[in-house]
């Protein structure tokens, strides 16, 4: 019962605080009279007109599709190569300068190359999203593999587990907590890069809409797009946390307080 009231309080907080923030924003923006910070009421009106649900199929769905594809590709590539690099000193030494080099390249600076190789369409955008999302997961995977408990490593060696078993049943579960941390960061990057990639050669998409609005000084529209991005960010994360909780029960049991 005590646990019940506690979680009830937490849910209440989680709802109350955003409402408070919105209220403050409402009051402040109503009196601010700034061109770039229009009243919240205006933003909400524009939000309702734009997204509920006029542009939903035309702008939202294509954006999300590209985002998920890029994200998925990034995660797969990052985990596969991260495991390889985490396991082999030589591979890690060899790849390290290249990895550190490429992940410091701004995605916007990569656009020319991406356009040349992938054209201006779908593939280019997916590439840009994947290119950026790959690094947080990759680094976390490598570091996660390197942090595997030495006693577990020894157990694995002693019992001569097959490579498949080592990967599937030891390495992947062991690194999962840290990989999830990386995926969480990358998820937000995917949303950001969805917008950046739509700076080029787009005819639809949330990012495209925000940038067009910004360029044509439709500031309330721009904020409505940003609002939508934020809402997506929140929802995606909520789904993510839900999945994570389900897959890491064991981890929560041995980490931090169990009471």
């Amino acid at each position, binding site marked *: 019962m005590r646990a019940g009231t506690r979680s009830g309080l937490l849910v209440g907080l989680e709802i109350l605080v955003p409402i408070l923030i919105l209220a403050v924003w409402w009051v402040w923006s109503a009196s601010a009279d700034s061109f770039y910070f229009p009243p919240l009421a205006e933003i909400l009106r524009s939000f309702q007109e734009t997204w509920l649900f006029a542009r939903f199929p035309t702008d939202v769905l294509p954006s999300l599709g590209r985002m998920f594809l890029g994200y998925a590709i990034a995660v797969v590539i990052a985990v596969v190569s991260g495991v390889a690099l985490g396991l082999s000193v030589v591979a890690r030494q060899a790849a390290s300068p290249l990895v550190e080099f490429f992940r410091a390249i701004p995605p916007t600076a990569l656009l020319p190359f991406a356009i040349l190789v992938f054209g201006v369409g779908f593939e280019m955008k997916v590439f840009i999203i994947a290119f950026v999302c790959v690094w947080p997961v990759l680094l976390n995977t490598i*570091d996660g593999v390197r942090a595997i408990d030495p006693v577990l490593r020894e157990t694995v060696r002693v019992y001569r587990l097959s490579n498949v078993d080592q990967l599937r049943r030891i390495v992947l579960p062991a690194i999962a907590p840290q990989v999830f941390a990386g995926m969480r960061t990358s998820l937000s990057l995917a949303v950001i890069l969805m917008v950046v990639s739509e700076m080029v050669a787009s005819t639809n998409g949330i990012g495209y809409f925000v940038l067009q609005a910004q360029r044509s000084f439709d500031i309330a529209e721009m904020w409505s797009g940003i609002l939508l991005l934020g809402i997506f960010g929140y929802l995606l994360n909520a789904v993510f946390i839900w999945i994570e909780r389900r897959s890491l029960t064991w981890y929560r049991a041995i980490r931090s307080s169990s009471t």
Partner: protein
Amino acid sequence: MTVVVETRSPSTSSLGPGARGRVAPTIAIVATLVLWQLAVTVGLIDAQYFPDMVSTVTQLAGLVVSSSFWLALADTLMGAALGMAWAVALGIPLGVLFGSTEWLYRAFRVPIEFLRPMPSVALIPVAVLVFGTGLEGKVFLAAFAAFWPLFVQTVYGMHDTDSVVVETARSYRVRTFDRLWRIKLPGALPFIMTGARISAAVALILAVTAELLFSQSGLGYEINLARSSGAISLMYALIIAAGFLGLLLNAVMVFIEQRVLSWHPSTRELLP
């Protein structure tokens, strides 16, 4: 043959460990450069729009002797370093706070997850309006973007403390400060250091991006000039320079990591 344990050549290797550590990356870098040159020479990539390796490296060599290049580099580095410093100064303490106080985290989860996917491009008007087009605007964008990976990783790291350690701290009534500073934080350090390395690159990327869009100096500014003038090999030479900055920043991060994580399995296995 085992996967999980690093395959290390025994100490009887004819090359010293240091030399061996340099051979593999050298081979990898040379191979990449050769592949690049081949891809352009063979025509896999259109040479009119993508420079070959030799001409880009020549460009870069030309840049290296010009002082304005180094000034630009220093400007970018300054923006990235300050942005990173802010990200560290805010991201880790807030991550510790939110990672250790559940009601706080729950209370601000919505605004946090709302802000996290804010694209920097959409924030540029805000950055320009509030912080201007100088160093401050650049630092703001770099700090804003670099904050999140550090913050998220710190929050995750705070949950990575062993439950027995937590119970130990509780039973000895270790005071809050020590519990955070000497128990939770060190326990979270492996995650935090990974986050710091991600953030360092993000700070650099955003510093360059800010320069691309509104700054008056720095690598991004030079890249923008080169791009808008169609000077392709110059542009790629500058992009490579940005990559080198990333290598430099990472070297710093690895240096720090090896010190603060000397107790961690991932680092201590490197010890003899």
